[in-house]
C-alpha cells in the first residue's frame, strides 16, 4: 500500500509499505477513504515530539470502509466508519470511566516505560504518533489496522459525506471537549487562543454550550475570518495588546474561561517565546508556551483554564502564582474521543454543528508532502487539508 512516512524534520514522503493484516482478535482493517493532516502532525513535522522514528506512518484523523475483521470485531465488511485517534480497550478502569485517552491496555508493554518515566504514568496509544504513544502505524495510508475495533470506530449512516463526519476522529471532539472543560455558564465570555481547526471548533462548541461572547485570538487574517464567521469577536495579536484588549472586551473582569488551542509551538516575538524556541531548538526544555502564560494572566479570578493544545515536556517561567492566587480551575488532556462521537454525530446530522467550513484543500494522498509543507508554512490560506487515498486528482 501507499502511505505517508516520517523521515525527519520537515521531511515526509509517500512510500510503498506492506499492507496491514489482522494481528489480534479484536482488530479490523480499514480501507481509508479520507484522512486529514492535523495541527499536532505539524509538531511531528517540526521534529519537536520525541520518539518518532524514520519510516513511521503518520496520520490519526481517518475514516474508511471496513474490509477485514478479526474474530472478536463487531464491525462488518462494507461498513463506513470514522476511527477515533485514541486507541482504547473499553475494558480497563479508565475506559469504564470514559477516560479513553488514559486507557491502560492499548500502549504496548515495552512502549510504556519511557512515558512512565516522563509523565509518571503511560497514556493510551494513539494512531500515527510517537512511540511514546505506541508507535501504531497511522491513517495517512491506503489501509490501517485498527485494534479494539469493537470499541473505537463509529459507523456512519448512508447519506452523510466523508467531509461532514471525518473530523469526528479528532478535532471536533477535541474542540468540543475544550469547551466542555470550560464549564460554560449561560452568557459567559470565553477566550480562545489559536484559530486552527481545534480553536475554531472550540469557538463553535462554546456557543452551542451557551457562551454569550467568544473572543478568538490568532495572527492570520484568513483564520480570524473563519472565527468571525462562527460568531466570535477576534483579536490579531500582531496588531493588538491581547491582555489589555481582553480586559476591555470583558468589562474589565477578564474572560470567565480561557482555552489554549495553540500548544507547545507558540509563535510570535514575545521574549518568553524567543527563549522557549531557542531551548526547544537545542533540545533543552521541550515546550513553548506563550499562549498558555497569556491565558493564565488574562482569565478572571476564579476562572477556568482549558488546555487542548498539545504539550510534551517541561516548562519554565510558568505563572504558577497567578494560577494559585487567582484560584483557577485547570482541565486538560488528550481527547476522550469515544465519549463524544455518538452525540456529535447526531448534532452534525441535525445541522447544529458545521464541520466542512474549515476544509481549505483536498489533495490525493500522493501529494501529502506538499500538503504538510503548505499547512505548515502557509497557515493563512491552508486551514485544513484532507487527503484522499486512491485518487489521482481531485
Amino acid at each position, binding site marked *: 500500500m501507499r502511505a505517508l512516512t516520517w523521515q525527519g524534520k520537515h521531511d515526509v514522503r509517500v512510500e510503498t509499505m*506492506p499492507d*496491514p*493484516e489482522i*494481528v*489480534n*482478535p*479484536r482488530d479490523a482493517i480499514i480501507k481509508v477513504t479520507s484522512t486529514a493532516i492535523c495541527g499536532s502532525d505539524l509538531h511531528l513535522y517540526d521534529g519537536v515530539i520525541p520518539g518518532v522514528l524514520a519510516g513511521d506512518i503518520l496520520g490519526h484523523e481517518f475514516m474508511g470502509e471496513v474490509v477485514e475483521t478479526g474474530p*472478536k470485531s463487531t464491525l462488518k465488511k462494507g461498513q463506513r466508519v470514522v476511527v477515533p485517534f485514541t486507541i482504547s*480497550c*473499553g*475494558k*480497563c*478502569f479508565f475506559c*469504564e470511566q470514559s477516560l479513553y485517552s488514559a486507557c*491502560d*491496555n*492499548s*500502549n*504496548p*508493554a*515495552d*512502549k*510504556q*516505560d519511557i512515558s512512565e518515566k516522563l509523565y509518571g504514568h503511560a497514556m493510551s*496509544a494513539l494512531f500515527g504518533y510517537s512511540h511514546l504513544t*505506541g*508507535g*501504531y*502505524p497511522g491513517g495517512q495510508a491506503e489501509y490501517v*489496522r485498527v*485494534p*479494539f475495533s469493537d470499541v473505537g470506530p463509529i459507523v456512519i449512516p448512508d447519506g452523510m459525506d466523508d467531509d461532514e463526519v471525518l473530523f469526528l476522529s479528532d478535532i471536533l471532539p477535541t474542540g468540543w471537549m475544550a469547551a466542555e472543560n470550560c464549564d460554560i455558564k449561560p452568557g459567559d465570555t470565553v477566550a480562545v487562543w489559536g484559530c486552527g481547526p481545534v480553536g475554531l471548533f472550540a469557538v463553535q462548541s462554546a456557543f452551542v454550550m451557551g457562551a454569550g461572547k467568544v473572543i478568538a485570538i490568532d495572527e492570520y487574517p484568513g483564520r480570524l475570518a473563519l472565527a468571525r464567521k462562527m460568531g466570535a469577536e477576534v483579536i490579531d495579536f500582531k496588531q493588538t495588546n491581547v491582555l489589555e484588549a481582553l480586559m476591555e472586551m470583558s468589562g474589565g473582569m477578564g474572560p470567565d474561561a480561557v482555552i489554549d488551542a495553540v500548544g507547545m509551538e507558540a509563535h510570535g516575538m514575545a521574549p518568553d517565546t524567543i527563549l522557549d524556541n531557542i531551548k526547544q531548538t537545542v533540545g533543552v526544555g521541550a515546550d513553548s508556551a506563550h499562549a498558555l502564560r497569556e491565558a493564565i494572566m488574562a482569565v478572571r479570578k476564579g476562572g477556568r483554564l482549558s488546555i487542548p493544545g498539545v504539550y510534551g515536556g517541561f516548562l519554565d517561567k510558568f505563572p504558577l502564582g497567578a494560577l494559585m492566587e487567582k484560584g483557577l480551575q485547570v482541565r486538560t488532556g488528550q481527547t476522550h474521543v469515544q465519549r463524544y462521537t455518538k452525540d456529535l454525530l447526531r448534532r452534525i446530522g441535525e445541522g447544529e454543528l458545521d464541520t466542512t467550513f474549515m476544509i481549505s484543500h483536498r489533495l490525493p494522498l500522493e501529494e501529502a508532502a506538499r500538503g504538510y509543507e503548505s499547512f505548515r508554512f502557509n497557515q493563512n490560506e491552508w486551514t485544513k487539508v484532507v487527503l484522499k487515498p486512491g485518487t489521482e486528482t481531485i
Partner: protein
Amino acid sequence: MYSDNDDPRFLPSPYGAPRRYDEGSYRPDRGTTAVVLGLGVLAGAAGYAWYQAATRNRVGHRPPDDAPGRTSRQSRYGNYAVTGRTVTINKPRAELYRFWRSFQNLPQFMENLHDVREVGDVTEWTIRAPLDREVTVRTRIVQDVEGEMISWRSIEGSDIDTEGKVTFRDAPADRGTEVEAIIAYVPPAGELGRWVAKAFQAEPAIQGRRELRRLKMLMETGEIATNANRKTA
C-alpha cells in the same frame, strides 16, 4: 553621536592580539568568567547547605513506615536483590489466581519464559538469557492459598537462588484485583554471574513490570497490545 569608532576600548590593538588586563579596559576571557561563576555557585551551595543544616528539623530515629519494603531506599537485603510491582486488574481474584496457578499459562505474558515443566512437586522454568543462553530455575511451592497467594523457592540444582511470591487482593471500590508480584534473587557470581547479572540486575524490574502489564492486557482485553502491522514482523 556615539560611535564604536570613537571609543578607545573598541580600537583594534596594534599587535592584533587581545588586550591584557592591564592594557586599559579589562575584559575577562571565558575561562575566567566560568571560574568566577563556578566559585559563586559553590559558595551559594555551601551557604544553602549550612543554612539547611542549621535550621532543619532533625529526626534521630525513624520508625518503619507503611510502604512495601522493596520501595525502601536500600535495594538489597543481605545477598538478595528484591524487585516487585503491583498492578490492578479489572477481573475477580479467583479468576486471576486460577490463571496464574496453571503455570503453563505464564509464558503467554512472560516473554523470556521459554518452557514450564512440572515434575512431581518441582517446577522447572526455562528462561531465555542474554547471548542466546538459557537458565533453568527449579522451584518448589512454599505456600499456596486458593484465591490469595502463591509463593515459591528455588531448590538444589537451580541455576539461580531465588524466591518469589504473588498475591491477589480485592481492589478497593470494585476495581477488580490488586496483583502483587515480588521476586528476590541472589545474583550468581563468576562467568555465569556476568550475564545473569546483566539479565537480572537491570532487567527483572523492567521485565517484571512489562510482564504484569501484559498479564493485565490479556486478562482485561483478551489480547496483548502490539503496534505490529503484520503477524510476522
